[in-house]
């Protein structure tokens, strides 16, 4: 079967989120099918600046066809229209303008799809909110699978996405909560598809005890992995952690792994570790007491899955229905909504190491049962059968 993946950015240099999810699924399906990735030459999701070579290349054995972005995002034009459509009464025309300003506008990719859609048996689109998915999926919806990676934010409420969600032959949801959310907000009941999620690619093992001294993480520590920015809940997490540390005088460090776009004062208890190789990151998670995930908007947290894969518990933001649901289903950690719950949960995780270890083990069992690659690939095969069998509603 020839399968095309369509995604806004792609490559080993793109870490985290839907793009990494897409790359892993593409690489695993490429072992069974002829896979080609259609994407842009951009690497920066804020500007969509063309940074990579256009044309055909190969990433980890998968064929990648890149098309240039027609224009960079202009923040002066994007911000007002985004504010308008998200928070005020607005017209359908303004929603269409939002889609154009949000980007990445890539007419050559769209032209390629129109010209060559017959060459592909199925098309898999990642992230509903991007121009490439919104317009690309409309080319051949009857053989398209959508991986929405939807979060509970204002964009999902835009009217233009209501009919859009009825188009694909099948939808690969990241969690039961995401499915409920999409069906409720877009007013579409019984959307075709199933809850899939993603597996996690485990890089070659690095001895845990080797990594900790190298990173200078010798005592008890908590770990955060991801983009370090206020929108991800990091400012509140750091604030809560420092307050808890002040109140309990606990000798615990919060180690932040990832690229930071916010300013905060590092001290002995809050340390910015930066971007490290995946093997080191996983080894650091394996030795941490727990992983903290403070984001309110997630459709599936891959770092939570990574923590469970490494047998560690998680402490997540309970305001995020997806994270709370995952933690309750797995019995793999605790959640908080306010500082008091954050502090009480940390008291438990730090004060009772055996309890933390057991929560981590339970999370690990849940990960193996639901997110092992064999299970994920099986589910994609079922969705591909739906798409190639013409069982969609397009």
């Amino acid at each position, binding site marked *: 079967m020839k399968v095309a993946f369509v995604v806004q950015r792609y490559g080993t240099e793109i870490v985290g989120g839907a793009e990494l999810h897409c790359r892993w699924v593409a690489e695993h399906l490429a072992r069974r099918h002829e896979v080609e990735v259609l994407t842009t030459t951009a690497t920066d999701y804020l500007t969509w600046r063309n940074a990579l070579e256009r044309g055909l290349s190969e990433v980890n054995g998968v064929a990648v066809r890149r098309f240039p972005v027609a224009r960079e995002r202009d923040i002066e034009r994007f911000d007002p229209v985004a*504010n308008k459509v998200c*928070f*005020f009464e607005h017209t359908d025309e303004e929603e269409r303008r939002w889609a154009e300003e949000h980007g990445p506008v890539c007419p050559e990719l769209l032209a390629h799809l129109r010209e060559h859609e017959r060459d592909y048996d199925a098309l898999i689109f990642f992230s509903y909110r991007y121009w490439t998915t919104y317009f690309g999926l409309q080319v051949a919806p009857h053989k398209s699978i959508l991986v929405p990676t939807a979060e509970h934010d204002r964009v999902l409420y835009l009217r233009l996405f209501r009919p859009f969600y009825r188009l694909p032959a099948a939808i690969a949801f990241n969690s039961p909560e995401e499915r409920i959310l999409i069906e409720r907000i877009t007013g579409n009941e019984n959307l075709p598809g199933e809850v899939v999620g993603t597996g996690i690619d485990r890089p070659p093992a690095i001895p845990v005890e080797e990594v900790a001294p190298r990173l200078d993480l010798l005592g008890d520590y908590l770990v955060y992995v991801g983009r370090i920015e206020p929108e991800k809940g990091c400012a509140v997490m750091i604030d809560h952690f420092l*307050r808890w540390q002040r109140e309990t005088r606990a000798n615990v460090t919060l180690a932040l792994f990832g690229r930071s776009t916010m300013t905060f004062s590092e001290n002995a208890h809050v340390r910015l570790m930066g971007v490290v190789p995946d093997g080191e990151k996983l080894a650091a998670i394996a030795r941490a007491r727990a992983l903290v995930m403070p984001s309110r908007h997630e459709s599936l947290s891959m770092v939570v899955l990574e923590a469970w894969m490494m047998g560690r518990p998680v402490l997540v933001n309970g305001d995020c229905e997806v994270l709370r649901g995952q*933690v*309750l289903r797995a*019995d*793999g*950690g*605790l*959640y908080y909504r*306010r*500082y*008091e*719950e954050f502090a*009480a*949960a940390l008291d*438990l995780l730090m004060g009772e190491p055996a*309890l933390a270890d*057991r*929560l981590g083990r*339970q999370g690990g069992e849940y990960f193996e049962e639901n997110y092992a690659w064999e299970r994920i690939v099986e589910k994609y095969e079922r969705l591909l059968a739906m798409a190639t069998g013409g069982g969609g509603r397009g």
Partner: protein
Amino acid sequence: MDEWTGSDGRVDVAAIMGRIREKIRGRRDRGLYTDEEVEELSALRLQAFADDAGIDPDLLARLMAPNHNWNISTDYRIETHRAGPAARLVVLLKKLVRPWIRLYTDQPLSRQAQINLYLHYLCHNLVRELVRLQIEHTAVRNKLDALAGEPGPPGDEASPGGEKGEKASG
């Protein structure tokens, strides 16, 4: 089996969270809040009022910030939605008339900015005081409920006896 383990031998996260919330409720019932918690509750209350009013979240964030850049200003930016030579002409005309307009608008706008600032302080402090009073009120009510549930001192038994006596004499 320890206190966290359920009958199936697994740690039950829902049960742990229930226990955590119960413990927090217990502290609150006794009115044990730190200043930071009072601030947090006040912010939540202000946020709820803003949600009801449906104001722009960006403006709310600025209203909650320690600086005052949410307030109106006597100065204003000169711009136009037009483009090309017409735009330059419009901007030039606006710049020319601005001093005359400000002659009439500066005084009332400046007064309005001071009133806004005063009302802002008043409202935020009132909400904070309201939260404190509600905490005290809840703690006192819980204490009263607890006292009402306790058996009274032995001397209190005198009045039922008296009643009995009255009935006997009647």
